[in-house]
């Protein structure tokens, strides 16, 4: 039974992830007074890329060839550690938030290497910027989990969320503060404004796009898809860990319907929120980003202190 739900989660999230990207783009288009492409456009893009021939740089090594597969593989593995519906998905071997963060770090490590691999100046600077931001984000991300871990006495994300869902309402204040830190980390990790602009190819500003500039065809499709997976992973994690209301704590199938509807509503809200926030602010200068990340970190520490006093 729980195996069935887990497999469903592992298939459902990668399937829906391009849709999330589509929604973000659509909302941003509305905010800019454009009609924009349909919300299913990312699916068509992936389909198109998978059926194109590839051009690969001669200087590329096996790291460049392998990275997209590794990235995609790890991105569809990540949801194992987070709850979609409730405690039914709990796995004793996976779900510690430390391994989740380090798997994300592994993805960043290899994409940065492949950015360096072809030896173009764009890729190199993309990697440098990506690693800079990733190095500073890791602390914020890890510390945003910590207050909840201390309240619930576990580092297993699924247990954390389901335990927290039963807490009295006033205990959620530190969660909200931690969420602000988490949200800043989310924007950084998924390459959103103000950290990175996912829809630009301007060499002065691009980070993620600079690293994957040399990719084409199926490998580009895999990387784009992996990024979409990462985005939906962060969205689900954000809404279910910091706002865990309505998560099911039983293994009863009929009790899963309400959490399912609720998670869709919560996730859509957050996605639209991300899109609105992205439209309403400009990209920050690279050297202003550490300040923002540090702010996020301080939010997490404040939350940590609030929780433990």
């Amino acid at each position: 039974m729980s195996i069935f739900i887990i497999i469903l989660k592992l298939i459902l999230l990668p399937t829906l992830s391009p849709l999330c990207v589509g929604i973000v783009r659509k909302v941003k288009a509305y905010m800019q007074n454009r009609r924009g492409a349909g919300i299913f456009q990312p699916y068509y893009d992936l389909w198109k890329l998978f059926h194109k021939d590839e051009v690969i740089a001669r200087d590329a090594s096996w790291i460049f060839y392998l990275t997209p597969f590794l990235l995609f593989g790890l991105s569809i593995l990540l949801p194992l550690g987070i709850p979609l519906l409730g405690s039914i998905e709990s796995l004793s071997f996976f779900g510690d938030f430390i391994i989740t963060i380090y798997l994300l770090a592994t993805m960043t490590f290899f994409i940065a290497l492949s950015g360096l691999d072809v030896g173009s100046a764009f890729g190199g600077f993309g990697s440098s910027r990506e690693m800079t931001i990733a190095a500073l984000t890791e602390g914020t991300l890890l510390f945003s989990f910590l207050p909840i871990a201390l309240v619930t006495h576990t580092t297993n994300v699924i247990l954390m969320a389901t335990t927290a869902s039963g807490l009295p309402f006033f205990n959620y204040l530190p969660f909200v503060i931690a969420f602000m830190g988490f949200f800043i980390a989310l924007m950084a990790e998924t390459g959103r404004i103000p950290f990175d602009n996912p829809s630009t190819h301007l060499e002065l500003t691009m980070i993620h796009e600079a690293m994957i500039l040399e990719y084409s065809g199926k490998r580009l499709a895999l990387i784009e898809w992996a990024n979409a997976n990462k985005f939906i992973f962060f969205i689900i994690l954000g809404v279910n860990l910091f706002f865990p209301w309505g998560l099911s704590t039983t293994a009863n199938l009929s009790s899963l319907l309400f959490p399912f509807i609720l998670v869709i509503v919560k996730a859509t809200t957050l996605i639209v929120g991300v899109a609105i926030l992205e439209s309403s602010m400009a990209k920050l200068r690279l050297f202003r980003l550490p300040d923002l990340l540090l702010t996020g970190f301080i939010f997490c520490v404040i939350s940590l202190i609030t929780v433990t006093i």
Partner: protein
Amino acid sequence: MQNLFFTSLLVLTGGSIISLIVQRDTKLSYVSSVFSMFGSLLALIFSIGALITQSTLTTTLPTSFPMFNISLHIDPLAAFFILIVSLIALPASLYGIGYMKQYAKEYNLGVFGFFYNIFLISLLLVITAHNALYFLFVWEIMSLSSLFLVIFENKKLQIIKSGFIYFIMTHAATAFILLSFLLLFQFTGSFDFETIKQHFASIPFVIQTIIFLCMIIGFGTKAGIVPFHIWLPWAHSAAPSHVSSLMSGVMIKIGIFMLFKMFLDILPQTPLWLGYVVLIIGAVSSILGVLYALSEHDIKRLPAYHSIENIGIILLGLGSGLIFIALKQPSLAMLAITAGLFHTLNHAVFKSLLFLGAGSVISQTHTRNIEEYGGLIKLMPYTAIFFLVGAVAISGLPPFNGFVSEWLTFQSLFSGIATSSILIKSIFIFGAACLTFTGGLAAACFVKAFGITFLARSRSIESEKATEVSPLLLISMGTLAVLCLTLGVFSFFVITNIQLIVKNLSLFSSKTSSLSSTGISLQVNQNVAHLNMPVIFLVMAVFIALSFGLVYIVSRKQKVVLRTVWDCGFNALSPKMEITATGFSRTLILIFRGIFQPSKQHEIEYVDADIRYFSKSKTVTLGIVNIYEAYLYYPLHNGLSIISKQIRKIQSGNVNQYLLYIFILLLGLLIFARY
């Protein structure tokens, strides 16, 4: 059992003597390395045996000197460190056979082999020594033999300078250790560790405090803690690479071993503040070590700075362990100390792998500057894979061993944050914060180190001519790379055994650890956390294979065309247009400008100095300030010079004046003796 250990010592001694005998014939120089391999193999078997049986061996050979006994004591903790020494010495010696050939014409390999074997012996003896005087004796042999290995390339001025810094620092450390042992002797009346252990509680509190601080400084200098670490990047980069791997992987762990042995076994029930001090030193060392590594472009100084970082991570484990002991929470202390010990083993493995990889690159390119490498992954494919494994492991990424020990360290720090006192809580928060930033920065640093060295195109003619190194070198690197993965995936097995070692300490007898392993899964009770590395490894492999399979099904018909990199329509890209290591880390250096104090200096030479439009040449010098050297060591050095100059004035060369000195001294002594 014991005989195996003595046989190993005998073999190593034989190796050192034979090395001197055959020194004329460079073709036979491999013989001493074979002896070192055999000796370390015996020590390895011995240590595994001792760990399985959990036995404690004690032997005392009396000597004619009072207070000086050759007293050997091998408890499971010592056996664990013998395991680390021999586990690294084995591949390092094998590597040495192939690596030392390049020096055959210029330097005397016989003397090298002699000191190399003596160094291995001294490492084994220091771990087993149980008498303070005898310990100092072998400790000194270890320091001196390693010094001679560091200055092996003695025709280079830079290397002599490095050796000198190492010499000064290691003896300053020994002075502090000596002071602490003399204080212990003063108050317990014995140099024997066993007697000291029994009488330590009777020593006055102030003296205890001084002893603890002296030990932290003394052993910490050897381990490479900030701010006493300055010798480490010099010495590690000067020595031949397999010696660097031994020094960084093993020798600095001897300092760690002594801290573990002293604070957990010989001088137990340490005060709470000691835990704070160790934890804060660990946190600061880890973050500063990795930051300085980021600014480094020398392929051997970079991992040397990472040693400082990893020593910091080990001390985070030890420090939290000491705090938990003082708080009477032995089960958490056992978790923290297990984390520290496991990271000691892991760091030994991946750091020696990285040094051996760096050595292979240097032997092909004849430079240590990573700005001159590039594209080596195609020329040296196996070295590249092994170096990548080391880089991934040291960055703490799953499923390699570095991840597991960092996970354990995180778990113990989190348990500390859950304690009630606000002071302890904030210290643990500080430690955890430093550890997370360290992890991220280490990954950035190794993307730089691996990417600039092995990826893209060659940046110099030397690196274009590089070829893969000889199989001997590859085998030794490969062994360590496989170990990195095995220690990560089968960490449950290793940790179960380390737990036994910790349980064997009298401090923890009949206590249960909050870390337990059920089957192949690790479990921390306090935080309800599980880690099942074999399954995680399997899941990762399956999912990556799955993405291969799916893509194959969808788009197997699509072609792959090879073209040159997009050059924006200009002529072909040259290596000059690739990003450099300096450029890569410049963003982070500017972000941490408070620590680095980066400087930028332009020098422009004009064709005509009056018309400043056409420049003939342009130089930009980017610099950073080394804050310890600038604010601690230079003032210290200058102060010492000034004082020395003042004191020199009493040396007038006039005989009468010297007679006056003697007279005054005599008078003083007489007065002193009278009252």
